[in-house]
């Protein structure tokens, strides 16, 4: 892939999670070695084996998770590793403070150099990170998802700073998957998908809808055999749901949605628009702030995950390794992870391993898990087979509703097809499905209705037809 960054510009690197943006920038910063190809800096080939090489060239990186030492002051953090040492080995802190103040004034980065980093807000801490790179003489700044941790107001403040830095002639690479920001801040935009550059453009040339299509579009449309849905009565109703993220900012803001038996409702949207929080609330892993979740006529808004499971909610989580399976358990044990203590798998507190084993054998066969035996550790399976184990567990207990989040991410085509087919089959048998995916094609090929999520709200519900792709793209970008 090729990428050209010019001085005095904010260059946005846009793409879905896993598109390769961060990996690419880690190569530029010397954290990872590239396999082949060259980096030219200021017209001459640059040898960057480790971050110190990058820093010497004048490349600075602000990571998504800050690299600051909270108990130290701003000035101490900024000069760390580049201290001016006095005659008896003491650090000249007064000089450091003067320099930090001077830098701050020059670029509009007002920070008290004597403040303890631990006492600062996230937005101000980010300024300290930027100061740190400037202090080390950075001329090219790489910002990795800088707004992910900021409030909208803080993000506006950051944009002002970045503009003034660009005006000073610095180059800025801005990694993001948020379309709105790109339009706001970027001079040039490079869109990446599956490790490749798919387009380089400018905000003037491309609309948000174009960008959304470039980001999520896939050249080959997966075909799923499915007949029309025959929706029954509603199985899950969401009423004015407000759900906070980990920082207690509302990530989902007043979502209304009904999932009927026998239909697949797709939730389309660029990642980070509240889908994760929504999914967690719908399986009992996150407490909504307000609103109601009604399951088959029963309110379950604040119920535990266990209650959701026992009332027939299946969950295919986006993060398979963290949430979906226990890598160190056998396939059989993973298949009963949520039903291990119920008959026939347990009598009292005694597990009935023979029942577990025969159930596992049945599921392994019907879900086509390629394994030597049910006793094999799940960790030794391929990703596709691990995901089949998750799907088998969740669908195997005949749920009424399935909440599936990125169910086919990172899987091979064969496994994707298999899991899609299973979901459609269960739909035809009366299952209500909420399918959250950042792959628009997955949504379009599976969903009977598509709800588009943008900034924590459902901005529209459409019939899931391929013809509506452009409209959905526009809505994902918040432009319709």
């Amino acid at each position: 892939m090729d990428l050209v960054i010019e001085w005095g510009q904010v260059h946005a690197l846009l793409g879905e999670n896993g598109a390769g943006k961060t990996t690419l920038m880690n190569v530029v910063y010397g954290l990872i070695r590239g396999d082949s190809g060259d980096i030219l800096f200021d017209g001459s080939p640059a040898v960057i084996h480790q971050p110190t090489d990058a820093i010497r060239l004048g490349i600075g990186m602000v990571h998504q998770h800050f690299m600051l030492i909270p108990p130290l002051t701003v000035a101490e953090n900024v000069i760390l590793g580049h201290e001016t040492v006095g005659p008896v080995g003491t650090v000249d802190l007064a000089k450091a403070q003067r320099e930090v103040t001077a830098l701050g004034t020059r670029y509009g980065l007002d920070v008290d150099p004597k403040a303890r980093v631990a006492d600062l807000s996230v937005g101000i801490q980010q300024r300290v990170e930027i100061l740190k790179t400037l202090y080390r003489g950075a001329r090219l700044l790489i910002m990795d998802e800088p707004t992910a941790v900021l409030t909208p107001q803080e993000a506006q403040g950051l944009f002002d700073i970045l503009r003034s830095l660009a005006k000073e002639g610095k180059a800025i690479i801005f990694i993001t998957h948020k379309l709105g920001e790109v339009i706001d801040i970027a001079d040039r935009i490079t869109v990446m998908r599956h490790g490749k550059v798919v387009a380089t453009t400018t905000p003037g040339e491309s609309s948000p809808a174009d960008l959304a299509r470039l980001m999520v579009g896939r050249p080959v449309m997966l075909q799923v055999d499915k007949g029309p849905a025959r929706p029954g009565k509603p199985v899950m109703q969401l009423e004015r749901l407000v759900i906070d993220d980990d920082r207690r900012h509302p990530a989902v803001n007043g979502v209304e949605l009904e999932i009927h038996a026998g239909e697949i409702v797709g939730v389309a949207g660029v990642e980070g628009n509240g889908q994760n929080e929504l999914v967690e609330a719908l399986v009992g892993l996150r407490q909504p702030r307000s609103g109601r979740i009604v399951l088959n006529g029963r309110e379950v808004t604040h119920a535990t995950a266990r209650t959701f499971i026992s009332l027939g909610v299946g969950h295919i989580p986006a993060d398979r390794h963290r949430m979906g399976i226990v890598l160190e358990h056998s396939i059989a044990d993973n298949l009963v992870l949520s039903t291990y203590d119920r008959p026939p798998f347990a009598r009292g507190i005694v597990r009935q391993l023979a029942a577990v084993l025969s159930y596992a054998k049945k599921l392994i066969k019907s879900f086509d898990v390629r394994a030597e035996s049910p006793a094999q550790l799940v960790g030794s399976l391929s990703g596709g087979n691990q995901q089949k184990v998750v799907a088998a567990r969740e669908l195997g207990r005949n749920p009424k509703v399935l909440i599936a989040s990125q169910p086919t991410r990172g899987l091979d085509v064969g496994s994707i097809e298999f899991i899609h087919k299973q979901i459609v089959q269960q739909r035809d048998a009366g299952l209500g499905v909420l399918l959250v995916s950042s792959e628009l094609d997955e949504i379009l090929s599976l969903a009977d209705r598509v709800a588009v999520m943008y900034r924590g709200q459902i901005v529209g519900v459409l019939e899931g037809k391929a013809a509506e792709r452009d409209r959905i793209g526009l809505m994902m970008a918040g432009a319709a």
Partner: protein
Amino acid sequence: MLNKRPRAIAAAVLLPVISVVAGFVVAGLAVAISGADPFQSFSALFQGAFINPRALPETLVATTPYIFLGLGIALGFRAGLFNIGAEGQFYIGALFGVFIGYSLHGLPSVLHITLALAAGILGGFLWAAVPGILKARFGAHEVITTIMLNYVAFGLVNFLINNGPMVDKASSAPRTPYIDPAAQLPILAAGTRLHAGLILAILAVPVVWFLLARTTIGFRIRSVGFSPTASRAAGISVAWTLLTTMGISGGLAGLAGADEVLGVSHYMPPSFSVGYGFDAIAVALLARSNPWAMLPAAFLFGALSSGSRFMQFQTQVSADVISIVEATVIMFVAAPALFQWIFRLRRAPAPPIKIASEEGATV
């Protein structure tokens, strides 16, 4: 747990064995540097542990608490909990056990012993439940809270027994009254201190194995130990699991304490244990948290503990040398990477012992 290939079993046995050998090599070097003959010292150690009259029964007497305590600590490991408080739970268990032992009279022996041991379990359970609740409810790290509660336990015992309400006023030494003879555990071999507690300890092994491998509680413990996030998503209450695990772990430590009172000392002095609760961490590590492996591991530590006294008497080499063996063993078992690096062996597929923390650091 089933269907392990012979090769895997061999590898799982090899690591502890080589660890122990390495422990003796390092301790032998220390002995040699101090000017004594390591071979002579270790032969005295062996003699004191197995050969001398009453050596083997004494070794088995010391093995008994190691089995209970090792099982309790291993249970914690399996849930990702590091219970450093076994020593304190041992003290409180002994305290509860001795109280029932000396304050009741005229009961049938079986009933009295059962009550006293049950009291010991209760004491250890309650003492461990405190860090369990702190962890489950507030996320307080159990390593810190259990260590601190050890000192509270020592202080409490000291207060109660040293001129406190539990002191034997008829005695000049600070200690509790003797327990009722009916509460004493029967002696297994005349002329030795070997008591029926050993049988209870050996019986505890299959019980704990069954709990871990065959019950829903054990499944929960192992699931949470492997992946708290996936367990939570599957509807398992992580907090409740940690709390119950901590309680059962403490109950086993408390049982060890009561058993020691009923079987060996028959009363309780203020400084009661010789650090069984700390040594047992090494026992659990050496057994790699496998209940069956607790038997040989505890036996080894029992032998070291009883043999070292004779070694010190015979060769003037301090019994503390044994701590070097123990420490080296822990180092090797806790750092399989170091071990592999030195011996270039294939790793035995034993479950890793997780020390619970936000980052999920693995030891």
